[in-house]
């Protein structure tokens, strides 16, 4: 073995396993050792499933020796703690589900297991995926491996930190407003959010059902392509999962960027963007151009309204989805309730953290009698305008490129006082969720030692376009290989 196993990507590990350079058990042991050494420093994990992982790795080695191994056979990964896993805790970062063990596996979990993946554990996250800094987790904030005083972003903070610190080569996540792409940008990893309906939401604890989509965080786009091929596809257990053919995403990575029309949105580079981040992103655009891409300015006139639209639609859906947590069937229950009403109110009041309560209440307000038309209906109309803007833009371009987040990682505690400041972190990513579009963030620079990301958004079902574009960029640059100093 010429290189330590934790430094290798999923694609490299697959080749090494295939050539018999190391076993799945050796690989799992090496990474579990890394998690043991660094997991607590970062607070990246809620549950580490060491025994199960070693048993699964042993099975993977046996299967390989017998022939007929799945595409991910013996390859390690972690799940965001929002995906239901049979026999292992699923907390969603909440006191409400502190002791919850799902009776079934999420489709994503099932498909990856069937392909032979070895699950090392489940990662910390903002409570019910509501947050952009991983500070709303009941289990405490995650620390950014690039600077332990900084946030790794959120809500997929734990998995982003774990991938960045080389504790795992890959992770599943979810993205409702930027929860995969923003933490990927802030930790120097690759984050992919597919088209709405591309991946089944079955067994993925619901936050905002018209926006939620499962995806991955990896260290390169080729690994994201490999995983998406396994995760994507129709599932009759999710009524919003769309029956659309699944292409070979890995083979889509060979396309040239020559003639690719890349849209640039002028407002993405307005005063809200940190200047040095802007320079890094413009450098990345120049790299795409040098590969033959044609940069074109496009207009998204309603972009400014995307964050307020999101903060009506998402809370409205969350207030409805989270009504299932009633202290009766599962989840936290208050002690000694006076009556049923008291049982509901105190179980929910104690089980949910402050941000989740705010979002439920915002949603309750915008859906309540007399306010529905002014807020919810209005927001769904503006959402249509935003989707129309994208539709028009994609008539002229193949992909839209810009920054993933307005700044590099910020200090823990810096944005917790004002919800609006926190919400504006997702200003560049939320549009893709509102319109159901695929997006990817890939590392494109370091600003004062902290990573920043290039964001690429494609048309519906344009995963191959964004993956290939990010992959070609990664062939020309080595930002995605940068590793935080303490985690080499």
């Amino acid at each position, binding site marked *: 073995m010429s290189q330590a196993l934790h430094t290798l990507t999923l694609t490299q590990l697959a080749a090494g396993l295939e050539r018999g350079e190391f076993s799945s058990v050796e690989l799992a042991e090496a990474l579990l050792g890394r998690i043991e050494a660094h997991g607590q420093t970062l607070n990246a994990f809620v549950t580490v499933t060491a025994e199960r992982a070693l048993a699964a790795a042993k099975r993977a080695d046996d299967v390989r020796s017998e022939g007929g191994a799945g595409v991910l056979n013996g390859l390690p990964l972690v799940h965001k703690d929002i995906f239901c896993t049979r026999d292992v805790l699923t907390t969603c970062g909440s006191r409400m589900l502190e002791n919850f*063990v799902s009776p079934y596996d999420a489709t994503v979990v099932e498909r990856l297991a069937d392909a032979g993946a070895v699950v090392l554990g489940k990662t910390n996250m903002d409570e019910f995926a509501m947050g952009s800094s991983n500070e709303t987790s009941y289990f405490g904030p995650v620390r950014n491996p690039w600077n332990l005083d900084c946030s790794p972003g959120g809500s997929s903070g734990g998995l982003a930190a774990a991938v960045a610190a080389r504790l795992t080569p890959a992770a599943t996540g979810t993205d409702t407003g930027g929860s995969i792409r923003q933490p990927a940008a802030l930790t120097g990893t690759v984050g992919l959010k597919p088209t*709405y309906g591309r991946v089944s939401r079955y067994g993925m604890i619901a936050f905002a059902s018209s926006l939620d989509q499962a995806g991955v965080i990896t260290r390169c786009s080729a690994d994201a392509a490999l995983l998406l091929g396994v995760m994507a596809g129709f599932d009759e257990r999710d009524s919003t999962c769309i029956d659309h053919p699944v292409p070979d995403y890995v083979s889509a990575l060979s396309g040239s960027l020559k003639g690719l029309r890349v849209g640039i949105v002028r407002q993405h580079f307005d005063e809200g963007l940190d200047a040095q981040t802007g320079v890094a992103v413009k450098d990345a655009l120049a790299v795409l151009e040098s590969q033959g891409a044609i940069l074109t300015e496009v207009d998204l006139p309603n972009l400014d*309204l995307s964050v307020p639209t999101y903060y009506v639609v998402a809370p409205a859906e969350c207030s409805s989805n989270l009504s299932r947590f009633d202290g*009766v069937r599962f989840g936290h229950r208050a002690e000694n309730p006076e009556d049923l009403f008291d049982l*509901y109110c105190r179980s929910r009041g104690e089980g949910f953290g402050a941000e989740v309560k705010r979002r439920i209440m915002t949603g309750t307000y915008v859906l309540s009698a007399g306010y529905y038309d002014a807020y919810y209906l209005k927001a769904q*109309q503006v959402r249509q305008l935003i989707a129309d803007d994208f539709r028009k833009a994609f008539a002229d371009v193949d992909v839209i490129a810009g920054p993933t987040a307005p700044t590099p990682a910020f200090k823990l505690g810096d944005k917790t006082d004002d*919800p609006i400041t926190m919400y504006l972190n997702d200003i560049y990513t939320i549009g893709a969720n509102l319109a159901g579009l695929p997006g990817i963030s890939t590392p494109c620079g370091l600003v004062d030692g902290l990573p920043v990301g290039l964001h690429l958004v494609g048309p519906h079902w344009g995963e191959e376009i964004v993956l290939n574009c990010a992959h070609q960029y990664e062939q020309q640059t080595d930002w995605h290989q940068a590793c935080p100093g303490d985690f080499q």
Partner: protein
Amino acid sequence: MSLDKDQVQHIATLARLSLADDEFAETVDKLSRIVDFVDQLSQAATADVVPMAHPLDAAQRLRSDQVTEPNIRDHVQENAPSTGNGLYLVPKVIE
């Protein structure tokens, strides 16, 4: 403040959420800021715009009305705080 204490208490009641005394003032302040923030939507010109129902204009899929899952009640109820004879137990509702 766009929301007052009584409104916030009313919303909390609708949402079945108890708020501790020390979190109530902060909730009034932050919810007001959120409502002020989303109020900018009122300026958008949306006459004749059809509200979005689905990001890909997909229609609701239906399936035949057939049993697809086995009965795993006992397994499911392992997560329940209080059960008896296969039922979920709650404080007495009818006097």
